[in-house]
């Protein structure tokens, strides 16, 4: 029973840390499936986390914070879109630029506005998201196994958490069962064909980039307004890149994205849990190894040793209309 409780605790924190990964990875999915590579997920998330934390504390409302987070993230996404769709610039370079701009600007503006060493003020009640209890969670808690799963693992999360998990089937549905999704996938594989069908490649790709911005914004808001109460300098700490790794690991498919993010989140939760403890059979594993494992796994996958990750064919290539 003790092992079971430990497991529940680890899984619970797995869910907690997976949510921003799922949101950011799905954000990347919309963009990359449309042929726009985006390594700026990290920067957009960071800027959104800052905007959310700042606006929520100034206006005293979590919803305003969420709105500000999404707005800022979409603005950055549009910069990326302008550079890579309209100006046909290098998408990787543009993504790198956005990461740096966000990294610097959040600290400079945070220090200028709040003077707390790059932090935003601690968010109080009503200024941040609170957890919701599913019905009968307290009553069912005493039932062995199932009750524990229901009231500790499934209940007691933020609304955004349920939203993130609901987004997975929704994205699947959009991508594979709607006209927009079909066109989105087509424009990432063969934009020439989409253009020939009389559909605007540019507008379609801009919409994909905006979707990406919205989801990155929500991911950032989750970081600064749900997981913690306030923005801390550099708080994304590479989560955008882990999300990118998860997206590749999932071969750009929505349901796989969720499992990849849960796997990487689980590794994260385990590495925190295992600090100083040793595993049976293996002995003590260095924490650094656990932290590096998502990246190592992604490299192994990319090398084609466990399946093959094939990116959308037109990814990274700006579309030039025939002249």
């Amino acid at each position, binding site marked *: 029973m003790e092992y079971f409780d430990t497991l529940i605790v680890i899984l619970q924190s797995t869910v907690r840390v997976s949510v921003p990964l799922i949101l950011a990875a799905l954000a990347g999915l919309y963009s990359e499936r449309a042929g726009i590579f985006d*390594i700026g997920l990290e920067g957009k998330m960071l800027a959104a986390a800052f905007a959310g934390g700042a606006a929520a504390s100034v206006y005293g409302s979590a919803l305003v914070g969420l709105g500000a987070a999404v707005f800022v993230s979409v603005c950055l996404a549009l*910069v990326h879109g*302008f*550079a*890579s769709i309209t*100006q*046909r*610039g*290098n*998408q*990787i*370079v*543009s993504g*790198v*630029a*956005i*990461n*740096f*701009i*966000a*990294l*610097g*600007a959040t*600290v*400079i*503006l945070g*220090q*200028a506005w709040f003077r707390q060493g*790059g932090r935003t003020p601690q968010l109080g009640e009503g200024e941040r998201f609170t957890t919701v209890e599913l019905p009968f969670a307290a009553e069912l808690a005493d039932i062995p196994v199932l009750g524990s799963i229901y009231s500790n693992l499934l209940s007691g999360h933020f609304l955004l958490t349920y939203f993130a998990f609901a987004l997975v089937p929704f994205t699947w549905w959009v991508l594979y069962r709607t006209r927009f999704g079909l066109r989105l996938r087509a424009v990432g594989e063969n934009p020439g064909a989409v253009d020939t069908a009389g559909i605007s490649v540019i507008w379609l790709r801009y919409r994909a980039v905006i979707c990406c911005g919205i989801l990155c914004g929500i991911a950032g808001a989750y970081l600064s307004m749900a997981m913690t109460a306030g923005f801390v300098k550099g708080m994304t700490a*590479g989560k955008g*890149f882990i999300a*990118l*790794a998860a997206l*590749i690991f999932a071969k750009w498919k929505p349901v796989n994205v969720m499992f990849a993010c849960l796997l990487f989140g689980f590794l994260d939760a385990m590495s925190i849990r295992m600090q100083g403890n040793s595993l049976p059979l293996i002995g003590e594993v*260095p924490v*650094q*190894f656990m*932290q*590096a494992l998502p*990246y*190592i796994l*992604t*490299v192994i996958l*990319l*090398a*084609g040793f466990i399946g093959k*990750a094939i*990116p959308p064919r037109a990814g990274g290539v700006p579309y*030039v209309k025939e*002249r």
Partner: protein
Amino acid sequence: MSVPYAKLPAWVDYGLIPLINLAVAFAVAGLVVLAVGESPVRAAGLMIQGAFGYGEGIGFTLYYATNFIFTGLAVAVAFHCGLFNIGGEGQAYVAGLGVALPCLWLDQFAPWYLVFLAAIVGSALAGAAWALIPGWLQAKRGSHVVITTIMFNFIASSLMVYVLVDVLKPAGSMAPQTRAFAESGQLPRLDWMFSWAGVDMGGAPFNLSFLLALVMAGVVWAVIWRTRLGYEIRTMGHSPRAAAYAGIRQSRIIIITMMMSGALAGMMALNPIMGDQHRMQLDFVGGAGFVGIAVALMGRSHPVGIVPAAILFGMLYQGGAEISFEMPQISRDMITIIQGLVILFAGALENMFRPAITAFFATLGGARADKSIAAAE
């Protein structure tokens, strides 16, 4: 794919357009300074004063520039082959081992120049080895080098934390760093260069690795533009198909280019470790690998452009530190913004002003043609 832009005179292409892009980047950075409530003009003045106004400032500026020359060259070499090496940060970090280990082994009995030689070879090899895997994966397995080098940055960071905390840290010490090197593990400073000019360098750690960086800039120029290998690299960069048709072995070129790139990034580790701190510390690279991207884009991947671009970023680093004394709102992080803006405007939005400039020169050319016709009549 057609190139949608008309040809411009060389001085416009290599001089005017980069300058305009750079000016726009700095103008936007100025807006940020304004938003924070300080005067951009005063900030610029303080920055230049702090970077070039006195001997020690110049020494620090050139010390930082040394890092950026190495990493800028690293990114540029890969650019010539059409590869984007974002992994300079990780390559330099791992190359710290190639510097620190020879120093730790040899500093008790070998003279400094032998240690230096061993460290040069060690850092280049370690950096090249860390770039070899992404290069090999790109060449043989088709995994995108951008993604793998990003992953390798994170893996390098975890690896180095482990090495410094669990392996190289002297017993009984709390700080995650190696022991300090003896005299011969330290590079001579270049005070004599300053005393020629009659300036006192003060405590700036400006050292011999600067000259090595300049030599490497020359070597990169010679290899890229004056050897068969360089020709093959540039052919690959312009058109992989043409390269294949010409019988160039693509995977060999990709792997060699990535290793050269990694070796250059790796040599950057000499400067902070042997030249300044005389020990290997956690996170000694401090983002220099990423600054290399901005430097290479600004310098148009040519050593003649990279050296001044690196000095400009050295000025931003040193001057930025000085500004924060006078204007506490503006910390080093301002440089991160400028770096991002330079990458954005000199890299991704490189061609934003080109149509307008092309049109301007077309009308200018047209007017000139009209005049000559009128003169002929």
